[in-house]
């Protein structure tokens, strides 16, 4: 089941630690001079702490530089933080702005080349080869996921089918007829496609899918297991965000013990999200990245809002690049319910261990008399429960009890028919927060 260990750029990926640091310092010095000269925002920031390109001597000096935040990017919309004139750009992407304007990112020709190498690296680390037929079921467009994987997979010589998302029956037809061996999708869409396939009377043996490069939304180990079972494939996760090119910042190798960060292109740090203080290896905090190779839109100490830990110990695959723990907890995703911090991933982990319900669920938050109410909607798929009413009630109690054990708060559990929770081809709408929208 586990693909063999492969490398795309073995020399770089297995570089000894001191060489990584040396390379990082060389690139970082160049970057500091580059942004000091080209981006007024960074010149101001560096001046404010008395840092100049001449004074920058060691990797530790990086800690003197103030963080860059999503708000900084928003304040300089659209091109204020770019280091090249728009004429030098060959591509623009944008991340979905749920509030207000999107975050616009740009790429030079050189950037696209670096980016596709980064994605090629993660694809090969995940087991992909030039023999693979890769179907990309991410929505194409401003979103970096689809084109990022597209270019990276083409770069390794795989055959790319730019199917985009949606039109599930056609996706399945292409998969079957063209012999797709690798799919790129969100975990929720991969799950939905397997449901549709089953409805059409197809099993995993009707397909040749062996690898799933799933991403763009969280995926708990329980969900991964369901997906591997449903498709008979080996699933890996990767990490990225449009501000940092897109996918390619980090990715799992076939041992799946964290995501290897492309440290020759990014310097990772972990900080306390409240105080901004640097944390040590192994301590959980907010991930911060400094880009070393981006030309159009470089970022110094960018706060990702993602919570993770770093691990510099050697990996069984031979890569020396630091590993970051899988991000299930995007700081932005944290819900505060009745004063308690709850991550949707905690709820998912509970639900996916319960056999009688489907892996699709929805979390609904409302407020009643100024008190938060948590409702978890699940779909009943076990028809043997229909024998006795009491068994359905017992299921409801069981879900409630398990959620309470993990979250420490009471949830209302609503049982629904299969397929009553909306399926999407992109990121699943797992959370509906209606608090503050209805009074009493």
């Amino acid at each position: 089941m586990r693909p063999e260990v492969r490398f795309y750029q073995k020399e770089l990926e297995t570089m000894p630690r001191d060489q990584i640091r040396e390379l990082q310092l060389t690139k970082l010095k160049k970057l500091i001079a580059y942004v000091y000269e080209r981006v007024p925002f960074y010149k101001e920031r560096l001046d404010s702490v008395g840092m100049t390109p001449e004074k920058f001597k060691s990797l530790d000096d990086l800690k003197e530089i103030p963080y860059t935040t999503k708000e900084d990017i928003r304040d300089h919309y659209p091109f204020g933080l770019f280091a090249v004139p728009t004429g030098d750009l060959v591509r623009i992407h944008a991340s979905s702005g749920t509030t207000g304007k999107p975050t616009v990112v740009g790429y030079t020709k050189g950037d696209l080349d670096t980016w596709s190498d980064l994605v090629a690296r993660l694809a090969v680390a995940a087991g992909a080869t030039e023999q693979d037929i890769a179907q990309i079921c991410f929505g194409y467009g401003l979103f970096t996921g689809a084109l990022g994987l597209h270019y990276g997979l083409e770069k390794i010589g795989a055959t790319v089918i730019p199917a985009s998302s949606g039109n599930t029956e056609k996706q399945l037809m292409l998969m079957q007829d063209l012999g797709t061996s690798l799919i790129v999708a969100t975990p929720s869409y991969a799950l939905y496609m397997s449901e549709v396939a089953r409805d059409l009377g197809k099993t995993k043996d009707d397909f040749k899918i062996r690898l799933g490069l799933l991403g763009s939304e969280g995926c708990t180990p329980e969900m991964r297991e369901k997906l591997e079972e449903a498709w008979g494939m080996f699933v890996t996760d990767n990490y990225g965000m449009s501000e940092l090119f897109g996918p390619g910042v980090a990715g799992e190798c076939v041992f799946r013990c964290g995501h290897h960060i492309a440290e020759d292109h990014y310097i990772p740090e972990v900080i306390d999200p409240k105080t901004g203080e640097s944390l040590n290896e192994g301590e959980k905090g907010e991930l911060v990245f400094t880009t070393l190779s981006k030309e159009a839109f470089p970022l110094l100490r960018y706060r990702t809002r993602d919570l993770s830990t770093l691990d510099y110990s050697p990996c069984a695959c031979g890569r020396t690049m630091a590993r970051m723990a899988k991000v299930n907890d995007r700081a932005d995703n944290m819900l505060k319910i009745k004063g308690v911090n709850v991550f949707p991933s905690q709820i998912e982990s509970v639900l996916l261990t319960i056999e009688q319900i489907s892996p699709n669920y929805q979390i609904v938050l409302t407020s009643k008399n100024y008190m938060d109410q948590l409702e978890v909607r699940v779909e009943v798929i076990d028809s043997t429960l229909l024998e006795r009413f009491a068994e359905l009630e017992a299921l409801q109690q069981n879900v409630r009890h398990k959620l309470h054990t993990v979250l420490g708060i009471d949830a209302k559990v609503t049982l629904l028919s299969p397929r009553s929770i909306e399926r999407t081809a992109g990121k699943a709408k797992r959370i509906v927060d209606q608090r503050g929208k209805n009074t009493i």
Partner: protein
Amino acid sequence: MLVKQISVFVENAKGRLAEITGVLADSRVNIYALSIADTTQFGILRIIVEDPDAAQNALKEAGFTVSITDVLSLEIDDRPGGLARALKTLSENEIDVEYAYAYISHTIDKARVVVRVEDIAKASEILKAAGFSA
């Protein structure tokens, strides 16, 4: 006599029952008996139909959670005390009725009920011995 009962999970949402009966109508399945038990949130619809397998397939295809089980269909006298006498017989023999509901009957002076018990064979025997056509 034994009949096949279809159970369907129904959440309390607008039009759910109409949807289910619509699926049965489209597959030309005739309903003989129907019972629905519910809480404020969800219910179980139980039906006796002409063609249980066709009904189950059609409902499954439409995405419903469906099960099929054997229940007892019992003929009783259509007069005061008819049902009471049958249930008393079961109770005296320590057979618990989990639920029961009325069934269409084409015989004048006779009524039919669907009775769900744990041990159908035993209940059936007892009722036959007491003169019921079960």
